[in-house]
């Protein structure tokens, strides 16, 4: 953990939710390194971390998602058993059915995490995902680690 530079990005004053959750479209951004079987996995050999992202459609088959993290820093058993642990599509669908949230975004996003040199993440890939979320008119974003 000491290797982390602990960079900060200024977000203040922060964004406001303009409507109740029951009317909001929610997107998930995870750093669980999930990818579709048809997408290339993240590259763990890149020094400082792979700052790219993968688009995960809302109709993705959860058990089929690949997990690119090879890190032994955490126990993979839970995620192997149930991708909802980091990408809770099934739970969000239930909340939508109950009327607690309005909708799920059509596209969600996956990063690798554990990026020790976040320059490109800050300058390029995270702003690109923010821009795609804005284009989708997402109202709020849930971020999940592993």
């Amino acid at each position: 953990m000491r290797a982390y530079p602990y960079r900060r990005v200024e977000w203040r004053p922060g964004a406001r939710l303009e409507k109740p959750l029951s009317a909001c479209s929610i997107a998930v951004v995870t750093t669980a390194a999930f990818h579709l079987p048809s997408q290339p996995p993240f590259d763990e050999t890149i020094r400082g971390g792979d700052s790219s992202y993968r688009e995960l459609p809302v109709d993705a088959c959860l058990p089929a998602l690949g997990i690119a993290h090879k890190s032994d820093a955490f126990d993979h058993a839970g995620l192997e058993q149930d991708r909802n642990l980091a990408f809770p599509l099934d739970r969000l669908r239930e909340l939508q059915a109950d009327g607690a949230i309005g909708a799920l975004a059509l596209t969600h996003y996956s990063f690798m995490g554990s990026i020790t040199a976040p320059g490109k993440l800050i300058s390029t890939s995270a702003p690109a995902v923010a821009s795609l979320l804005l284009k989708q008119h997402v109202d709020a974003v849930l971020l999940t680690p592993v």
Partner: protein
Amino acid sequence: MGLIQSIIEAAGIPTVSISLLREVTEKVDPPRVLYVDRPLGFPLGEPGNPGVQRAILIQALELLLVGDLPTRSSIQV
């Protein structure tokens, strides 16, 4: 992850994150965080336990309604 969160928030979309590493998260200082008392690899609590996952998810989403930022909450499951 807190960096990605801060960038999305700065772009104008309210964000909330789940964190399993309080010490790291506080250094990155993102706007809304739910601390989950579980080890790395278990952000929504337990595999195959929809009740626990749902409780964590709801508490996280409710933080989106908080306007006084930054805000922190925690859940023990």
